């Protein structure tokens, strides 16, 4: 299959299908975090960070920590600590190449999400990093974002998904374990998956 098997639509056709966004929708987009957005961020333990390199190759990665870990330093500046991860650092290498980023923030139990688009840099400023200490660990790097577009995204997607429905957690039991997926994608024998699961259980104890 190739994506060209499906006829693409052009912009006029897209607009004639969807219509234009209403004035209220456009009005709710600001370039700063108001008090309500600040309260949203202060209670958000999870976000997805989208970046792209200068050629437009995209990446989206999950970031999670104590609620409020995406810290607003003021109404136009937010900072994300870079915690222990896989060291691929796609997001940060992209940011060095192209500062444009998109952030989608979640609050457990809340169907609306907060979208923050802006321009980012990567810093190792010691006094800033000290503020991001968590469970004894000061991050080595942080991403600082100057906000350009801020808005609350409506809750239909999460409502349709039933994302916060506890019963839907059973879905995870039907998905192969991370070890199985990892072993298969790396070309290892399925038994290796169990070893990977054991190793991950140990590695997950050190979150910082």
């Amino acid at each position, binding site marked *: 299959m190739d994506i060209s098997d499906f006829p693409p639509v052009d912009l006029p056709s897209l607009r004639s299908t969807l219509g234009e966004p209403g004035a209220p929708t456009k009005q709710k987009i600001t370039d700063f975090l108001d008090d309500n957005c600040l309260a949203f961020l202060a*209670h958000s333990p999870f976000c997805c960070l989208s970046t792209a390199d200068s050629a437009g190759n995209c990446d989206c990665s999950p970031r999670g920590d104590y609620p*409020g870990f995406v810290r607003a330093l003021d109404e136009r500046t937010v900072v994300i600590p870079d915690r222990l991860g896989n060291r691929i650092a796609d997001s940060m290498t992209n940011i060095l190449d192209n500062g444009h980023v998109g952030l989608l923030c979640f609050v457990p139990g809340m169907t609306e999400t907060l979208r923050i688009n802006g321009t980012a840099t990567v810093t190792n400023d010691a006094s800033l990093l000290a503020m991001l200490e968590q469970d*004894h660990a000061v991050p080595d790097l942080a991403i600082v974002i100057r906000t350009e577009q801020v808005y609350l995204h409506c809750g239909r997607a999460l409502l349709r998904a039933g994302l916060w429905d506890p019963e839907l957690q059973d879905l995870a039991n039907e998905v192969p374990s991370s070890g199985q997926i990892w072993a298969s994608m790396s070309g290892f024998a399925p038994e290796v998956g169990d070893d990977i699961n054991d190793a991950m259980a140990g590695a997950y*104890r050190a979150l910082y």
Partner: protein
Amino acid sequence: MTELVVREIITETPSIRSIRLESPDGSILPPWQPGSHVDLQLLTRHERQYSLCGDPGDLTSYRIAVRREPRSRGGSHYIHGFLRVGSRVWVRPPRNLFALADAPAYLLLAAGIGITPILSMARHLAAQDADWRMTYATRHRDDIAFADELAALGDSVTTHVSGESGRLDLPALLSALAPGTAVYACGPQAFIDDLTGLAGLLPEGSSIHVERFEPRQREHRPNAPFTVVCTRSDLTVEVPAKRSMLETLQGAGVPVEGSCLRGICGSCALNVLEGEPEHRDSLNGDDQSTTIYPCVSRSLSPTLTVDA
């Protein structure tokens, strides 16, 4: 941890809020003495230590006071920005690492937000009709918290505004003490370091008791791996150089609680049965102490045996 509810928030100064906490059903709270603190956990899971600064005789509520730290690691940022009347918080029962001992006379010293444990000590000593004096130093006049409550304690309380009168003259204060006077002090790091550096000026029989809310800055030898034998859990745990003893023990399933993770709150205390602990905490212990705080402390001997 026990759930409590925020019943009242008062802006005491431009940077200090006091917060009154009650049990959700209004039931009586565990008792405490002047100097006690609670480990307080927010809905965001941030956990911090706060001295109780209310009236120990009224167990229907606890009061804490929190300064907004310009470089907050998240706790005071949340408490000042987002905590509201009706918010839930969780606390462990009060613990006292800064208890008043019997003494013929007392000098209480508070600097900045260090007023919180000192205020309840002052009220207690006033009620006991003890021989006591207190000096409370702040940078600016509008940084003085609880001014009305302090005024009610009478002439024993002196406020010192360093922005107007210069640095508090600690050598003069200490040199003038009567023999046997117990000094209790709480404040920022520089203040406590200055004070403890002047211990030589104390008259005979006097002692200095301090409480820090920031870790003491000290040089340590580089981290080395060591082995911990946990007698009650019947486990032997290898602590790597890059991990703390506390997180390694917890990861191995040894039941030990931590709270501040910075060697100031004392909640992770363990008894050392054998071996030579390397104390890196900021509590009042001495180097020979057999109580170890594994969130920061390590071992000088290759193996440490603890009662855990």
